[in-house]
């Protein structure tokens, strides 16, 4: 028999140490951590680009950048935030939490899991390196519209390669997640008993698998148009540049839901815990998520109201887009009803979750405004759209990630985070976020186009406010870094349950969760 001193020393039995441990690991917790660290680093990289953009826009005139470099910054900021921050962070949560929540020992395909992560930094590197290539980084917008995208230099080809790699990583990750959730649930844990986080990831993985080939095909056709003389998107050769937009948005509209469904999942775990009351309308949450996913395949052209479609097409896409507001509304109502008559306490995860519900809804409302085709025609490609998608992605996706980290970090590290610092991080983020993005609604309404390095004088005041907010928001993320590092190093010992109201298999494990968990399945009654 081994002695008691070994009881908690179950890290890496027979595993290589140092860098090799991380390169070769197939452990879902290791891989989850890798994803999350990658996302955090990219958050600071892409965030720095955002601050450069905002600094340039602090006043009219060109001060810090030239127009070409400015376009490189906006493009890279978008690509890295979407593919390098939000998606990897959600994959990190899935890797850590899905097996713990399902009572599974690991993911269904651990080795594929390792590959899925390790090709990501390669893609990130390809993108970053292009800043130092002749012609600079890609500057055609994250949407990669041709013919502009056909004009660019070598970095555009590298970007296509990077998008392929990130797509491959997503596919491997999704297949892993979908099979894990379907096949590795503990006995008794039926689908309709699964934590909502697993449900949202199941549907997200489904959307990813359904749409990734479309993205891969779209960028490949850009590549052949650029290098091999095809004319898919070139009118002079019989192609159609607008078809790229159809193909791209057929992928990218489901993609924006890929960026928010796991957030719905995280928030649906956090709110019941701190309201000390079960999630209201679990089944309707599942159905709402599924209907959002289904609808997301028939709304893509709401990004294209200004390309000039027949009235019938505009009406169809307007109505279908408006319909999405129904299931989205149901979710918000359910969260509010979960809080209703609860016994709430306001630790940092809960604060971020509440801010999520409130601010994400503002993004939903501006989405509804944009769904109205005639209004969208006025607001398309203005700062109003920038405001819309930052409300859903910053106060939506990113805030849910913060909520999730504060919520599960004690389980992962065995230490409580510093609540005071957490609250500082929360309040500065919420206030900063609103100062940056709220005035952008007004800028868009007043007529300021997006993706411009310089602007007319009447836009000055709101731009200055936004820039001040951006620096508040940006620098308060350093607090987050400090909190995470401090929690990993030490801090008050976390109990197994961690939160008074926490429910679910992961909270039955010791804190920190041992390296190997649920090697054999628990039984759920």
């Amino acid at each position: 028999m081994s002695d008691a001193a070994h009881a908690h020393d179950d890290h890496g039995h027979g595993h290589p140490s140092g860098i090799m441990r991380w390169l070769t690991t197939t452990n879902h917790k290791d891989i989850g951590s890798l994803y999350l660290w990658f996302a955090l680093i990219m958050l600071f990289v892409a965030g720095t680009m955002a601050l450069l953009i905002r600094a340039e826009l602090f006043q009219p005139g060109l001060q810090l950048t030239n127009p070409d470099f400015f376009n490189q910054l906006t493009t890279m900021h978008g690509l890295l935030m979407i593919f390098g921050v939000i998606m990897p962070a959600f994959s990190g949560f899935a890797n850590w939490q899905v097996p713990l929540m399902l009572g599974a020992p690991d993911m269904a395909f651990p080795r594929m899991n390792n590959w899925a992560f390790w090709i990501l930094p390669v893609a990130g590197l390809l993108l970053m390196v292009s800043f130092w290539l002749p012609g600079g980084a890609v500057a055609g917008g994250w949407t990669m519209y041709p013919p502009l995208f056909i004009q660019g230099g070598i970095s555009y080809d590298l970007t296509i390669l990077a998008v392929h790699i990130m797509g491959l990583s997503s596919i491997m990750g999704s297949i892993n997640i979908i099979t894990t959730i379907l096949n590795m649930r503990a006995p008794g844990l039926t689908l309709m008993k699964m934590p909502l986080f697993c449900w949202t990831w199941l549907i997200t993985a489904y959307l990813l698998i359904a749409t990734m080939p479309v993205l891969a095909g779209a960028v490949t056709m850009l590549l052949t148009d650029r290098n091999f003389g095809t004319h898919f998107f070139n009118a002079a050769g019989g192609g159609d540049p607008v078809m790229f937009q159809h193909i791209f948005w057929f992928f990218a509209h489901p993609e924006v839901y890929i960026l928010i469904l796991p957030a719905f999942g995280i928030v649906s775990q956090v709110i019941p815990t701190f309201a000390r009351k079960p999630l209201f309308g679990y089944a309707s949450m599942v159905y709402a998520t599924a209907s959002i996913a289904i609808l997301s395949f028939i709304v893509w052209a709401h990004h294209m109201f200004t390309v000039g479609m027949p009235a019938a097409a505009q009406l169809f896409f307007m109505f279908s887009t408006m319909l999405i507001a129904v299931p989205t509304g149901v979710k918000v109502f359910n969260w509010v009803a979960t809080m209703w008559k609860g016994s709430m306490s306001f630790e940092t995860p809960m604060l971020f979750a509440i801010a999520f519900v409130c601010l994400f809804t503002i993004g939903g409302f501006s989405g509804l405004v944009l769904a109205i085709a005639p209004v969208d025609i006025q607001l398309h490609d203005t700062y109003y759209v920038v405001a819309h998608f930052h409300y859903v992605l910053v106060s939506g996706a990113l805030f849910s990630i913060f909520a999730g980290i504060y919520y599960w970090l004690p389980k992962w590290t065995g230490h409580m985070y510093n609540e005071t610092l957490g609250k500082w991080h929360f309040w500065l983020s919420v206030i900063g976020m609103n100062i940056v993005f709220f005035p952008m609604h007004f800028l868009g309404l007043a007529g300021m186009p997006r993706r411009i390095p310089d602007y007319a004088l009447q836009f000055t005041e709101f731009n200055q406010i936004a820039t001040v907010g951006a620096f508040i928001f940006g620098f308060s993320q350093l607090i987050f870094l400090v909190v995470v590092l401090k929690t990993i190093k030490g801090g008050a010992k976390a109990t197994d349950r961690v939160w008074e109201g926490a429910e679910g298999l992961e909270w039955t494990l010791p804190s920190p969760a041992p390296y190997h968990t649920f090697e054999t399945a628990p039984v759920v009654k």
Partner: protein
Amino acid sequence: MIGKWQRVGLMGTALAFSQSTLAEYAYNLQTPASQVAQNVFDLHNLIMLVCLGIFVVVFGAMFYSLLKHRKSAGHKAAHFHENTTVEVIWTVIPFVILMGMAYPAAKVVIDMKDTTNPDMTIKITGYQWKWGYDYLNDDISFYSNLATPREQIVGSAAKGEHYLLEVDEPMVVPVGKRVRLLITANDVLHAWWVPALGAKQDAIPGFIRDSWFKADKIGTYRGQCVELCGKDHGFMPIVVEVVSEADYAAWVAKKKGAAQTAAADNAKSFEIAELMGRGEKVYEASCAACHQANGMGMPGVFPAINGSRVATGPIADHVAVVLNGRPGTAMAAFAGQLSDADIAAVVTYQRNAWDNKTGDLAQPAAIAAARGGAASEAAAPAAQ
């Protein structure tokens, strides 16, 4: 006695006025100058009101709950977690509200899409980075470039009132006429937008899309390109001058006179000094955005003209590149954009400015001759 609602209305109007004086802090869409823009304005206000109403109700409930149902206030958690009736109600009500919104919106869509029965038609072409206007009824064509001086942009001069929203040649239209727009692009996507007129349409190379507006008020309306089109996307504004019928007729006459002078220029032969002076202006307007005023280009993106093989090699090749562009790159074909005299001038300028002291000189007649061969050359694959 004025009723309560009238008073609310008055207050609203007062508020709207106080806002319009504070131009810097505009909180809504620009003041409409056409019926379509007005319809969109009203539609937007309606939706905002509905959204505001829903927001207040839902988050009123949430914040009430946050205050009352907190653990620190001693509230004990209830245990309900389902209620089919409630869930059906809050699925159906939003649906009904949305239908209420969809109806007026659909009407505006159909109205906006109806481009029939125009009084006049203007073809608008987006270029990297300027707009071209062709008045199909009056046979007038011109280009519209940013007029803001470079010094204002880099900060060495004070910025003017219409910084970045001013052009050398505005589009001029008569008030109260239905103007049909045929919009296309020459190189990459652009989008033509004048907010106050409520017209926005992507400009797509190889395709023509239409839109329309009818300006209700005389005035100057400003807009910008709203589809990322490369480096100077932020620097290709749109200015529409809506004038009276009489002023429009006068403008047309003036434009026609200018066109005749230009045609006469094409038949002339010039001195090198004349060509250099004219060429420098054309270079500033059409070439300097990429190749830079000093002819050095931007390494890796736009090639230099100073010392380039094309600008110092055989003159026929040089003219061919200017006429036909370099397909697949940002180098546009200027055959359709510049007159023979302008191309002769700019080629002469490029061959003699900076260190390119070739002493060569191109005349409009030579350009006209080269144009004859341009069609067959354009079909051949680009050199190199």
